């Protein structure tokens, strides 16, 4: 997986084992993080005990057995090096969080004032699906493939991760209201959920209406969120009241979303689509005098031959990272949606950084629900049985 994100003044790009921090204007690499080969040597504990803290005594002893088995296994098997799943910078830009597969862990790096310095290595129960810092940068939330959401304290590195809440399918996005009162999550079961914070046991409500996975969320203002989904729609919600405000058809299923302000009460949204070539749609969002958001389709960007995986705005430009022939590529579009030529040289320098990394795209088709019919067969047999009886 790659991550592409912008946190003024740095563009952050991550793939496999390396994270680089780049100045998007002159291409200078500020710093980089190379993942350590052996996280167990840095104190990572086997992570299979990351369930609820309230287990019965019997289970605990069972777990100890499992753990000793795991550690025995580790001695004999060559340790698989960790690989990056997700990267995020804290809102105050002081911390960089990295989740890894292979050796499943949550790493925290201190980015300021010095070069990136690894400050904590904590276990990760299952592969992460989203990571998000709290607005005050004090807490990192990590959701995993099974839908659980764990809290990692960023001030006390020693503190065990804590299970906050759970969905019943993978969580694709998690956003935190700027006032920290709500966490909004979306999952593969078509749901957007609004959870109170810090009372995360208390569900505030749901925004229901999507009919496939909900892949990405963002705030338009303090009461409104935008969502995109595999059902080929983009929707706006009054999320505190669970009310759908607007719906717009997308040309294809939506996978990711990013926003930039283009003026007062005016935003531009880029939606990454699940279709070849014409894979980014741009929308203009305008807030009217009556506080109603209007959505207008602006244009579709063509990126032939590239499987785009990540998008982000930097000032007026849209950056897209993706895969060509199993290798990393970066594309930049200017405000008119034209591919920016000027940056060609420095993009090569960035691509050079990841030249040796082989990268296979994620199979997004697995996000869609598999409909298998276990009903009509039964009904057919029942019908025959009843007909038999009537004869």
């Amino acid at each position, binding site marked *: 997986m790659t991550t592409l994100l912008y946190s003024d003044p740095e563009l952050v790009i991550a793939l496999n084992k390396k994270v680089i921090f780049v100045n998007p204007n002159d291409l200078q690499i500020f710093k980089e993080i190379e993942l350590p080969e052996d996280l167990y040597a840095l104190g990572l504990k086997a992570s299979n005990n990351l*369930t*609820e803290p*309230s287990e*019965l005594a*019997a*289970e605990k002893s*069972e777990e100890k057995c499992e753990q000793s088995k795991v550690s025995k296994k580790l001695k004999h098997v060559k340790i698989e090096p960790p690989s990056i799943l997700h990267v995020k910078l804290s809102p105050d830009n002081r911390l960089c969080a990295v989740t890894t597969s292979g050796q499943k862990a949550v790493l925290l790096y201190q980015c300021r004032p010095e070069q990136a310095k690894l400050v904590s290595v904590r276990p990760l129960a299952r592969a992460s699906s989203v990571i998000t810092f709290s607005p005050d940068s004090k807490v990192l939330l990590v959701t995993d493939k*099974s*839908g*659980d959401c764990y809290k990692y304290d960023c001030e006390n590195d020693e503190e065990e991760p804590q*299970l906050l*809440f*759970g*969905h*019943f*399918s993978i969580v694709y996005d998690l956003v935190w209201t700027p006032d920290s009162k709500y966490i909004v999550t979306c999952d593969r*079961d*078509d*749901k957007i959920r609004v959870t109170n914070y810090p*009372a*995360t*046991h*208390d*569900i505030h*409500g*749901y925004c*229901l*209406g*999507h*009919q496939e996975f909900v892949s990405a969320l963002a705030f338009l203002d303090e009461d409104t969120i935008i969502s995109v989904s595999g059902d080929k729609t983009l929707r706006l919600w009054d999320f505190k009241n669970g009310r759908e405000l607007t719906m717009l058809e997308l040309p294809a299923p939506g996978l990711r979303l990013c926003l930039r302000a283009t003026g007062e009460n005016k935003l531009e949204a880029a939606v990454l689509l699940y279709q070849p070539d014409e894979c980014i749609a741009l929308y203009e969002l305008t807030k009217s005098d009556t506080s109603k958001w209007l959505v207008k389709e602006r244009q579709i960007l063509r990126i032939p031959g590239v499987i785009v995986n990540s998008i982000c705005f930097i000032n007026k430009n849209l950056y897209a990272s993706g895969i060509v022939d199993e290798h990393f590529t970066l594309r930049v579009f200017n405000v008119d949606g034209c591919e920016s030529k000027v940056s060609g040289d420095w993009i090569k320098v960035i691509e050079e950084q990841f030249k040796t990394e082989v990268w296979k795209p994620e199979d997004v088709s697995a996000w869609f*629900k*598999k*409909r*298998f*019919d*276990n*009903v009509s067969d*039964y*009904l057919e047999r*029942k*019908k025959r*049985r*009843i007909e038999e*009886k*009537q004869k």
Partner: protein
Amino acid sequence: MVQEPCSISLPQKRYYRQRAHSNPIADHCFDYPAHPDNVNWQEFYPNITPDQHVEFADIGCGYGGFLVTLGEMFPDRLAIGLEIRVKVSDYVMDRIKALRTLHQGKYNNIACLRTNAMKYLPNYFRKAQLDKMFFLYPDPHFKRAKHKWRIINQALLSEYAYVLRKGGLVYTMTDVEDLHNWIVQHMEKHPLYERLTDEEEKTDPITPKLYHSSEEGTKVVRNKGDHFLAIFRRI
């Protein structure tokens, strides 16, 4: 749906047997409403009035024995049985149809819905809609790896608290002591529930019915097994 022809008799269970376990995490062939607004409750309750809504939910209602009792006990309130297994839920639907035919004007307040209660409760019920939820003889999912499949766990308890009104009750019953301990431990740890006192549990008019009306329960009584009851209040 295929119907037993003009059911003068109740459906026979032997045609509807199905193994006791179901994977609640997997995708299934379910039609579920995107929003509670989209449910046509008239299909379930022919005499429903506009100001009436479902208040009781029997989660994993099995063959519907308790659901029928509940309908008899509270003729003015609507109860729904949720069951994930195709044949078993179909049995309950046929059973209710037959009961309605056999007893004109009765049993119009109970219905059965085939769905996955772990995933789709908020698709059917609004916040604070339900007054009582029942978890009777749930699948114990003994293996540790399958504990996430248990119908009572930390994450699901928050979902149940969402659909339950304040003061609403959760009834749990099992013949597996370990599961009972698990349920009590998780419910007591969750900030939105408190357990009723022994006295309150004993005097609840539903309590005696819990021991006798579910088929699984009857079986356990026959086997002289122990039952473990616990009732909790949504705070």
